[in-house]
């Protein structure tokens, strides 16, 4: 079971620049669907890669579904060599995304985020309309129900705003 609060606290305490996306972001906007992992888009700046690696190292990060004896070490070099990492950690499953389809990287997404207060922390979360945009762009059949729900949420939110 993923400790969402623990993972978010690990990242925010280390001052990692990241944006909450995916299922947990959808929940923060009001989605009723369950999700099992935490998806974040992280800044690719060198200092941020250092912070990210340092923050996650004590949580035994490892590539999800990889053979158990693979020599994997999450450090700045590894992060620089790759882009998107699907990880298991002691706190649960974490997807580190350098870029997402239809949205780009951290810098492109940042203007389309909200600052949310959750678990006593301030976390940047992708705005609802942009969450729909990137899920539509991903074009995965499994996302269709989630997109439908997010669009329904946007419609309900618009009624409240009027």
């Amino acid at each position, binding site marked *: *079971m*993923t400790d*969402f*609060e623990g993972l978010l606290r690990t990242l925010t305490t280390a001052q990692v620049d990241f944006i909450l996306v995916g299922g*947990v972001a959808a*929940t*923060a*906007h*009001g*989605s*009723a669907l*369950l*999700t*099992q992992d935490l998806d974040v888009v992280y800044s690719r700046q060198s200092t941020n890669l250092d912070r990210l690696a340092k923050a996650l190292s004590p949580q035994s990060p490892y590539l999800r579904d990889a053979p158990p004896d693979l020599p994997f070490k999450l450090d700045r070099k590894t992060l620089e060599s790759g882009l998107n990492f699907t990880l298991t950690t002691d706190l649960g499953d974490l997807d580190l995304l350098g870029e997402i389809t239809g949205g780009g990287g951290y810098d492109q997404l940042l*203007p*389309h*985020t*909200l*600052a*949310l*207060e*959750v*678990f006593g922390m301030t976390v940047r*979360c992708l*705005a609802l*309309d*942009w969450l*729909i*945009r990137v899920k*539509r762009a991903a074009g995965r059949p499994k996302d*269709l*129900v989630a*997109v*439908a*729900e997010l*669009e*329904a*949420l*946007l419609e*309900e*939110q*618009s009624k*409240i*705003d009027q």
Partner: protein
Amino acid sequence: MEIGLWMGFMIEGTLRNPLDATLPSMVGNENREVARLEFEPDPVIEAFKQGIDRTLLRENLKKSPHDRLVNLVALQRFAEELRRAGRKARIVQ
């Protein structure tokens, strides 16, 4: 006096243009563009929308983002408990 500054005075009690800060925060989206994206209706997504329980969504929208995540954690624990019970039941059989 510029109309924006006058509105700022009326809303915030200061001579600030409310479009600079107050209006985005009034709609709950500080630090982002006010304009929302609009989407072309997709027939498949529209079909899936028919099955969405909007009463759940309306209830969720009454909660804060923090409370929504707390609820997710509670549901996650409940789902884990059900999985554990299922495994135990299979072992007993």
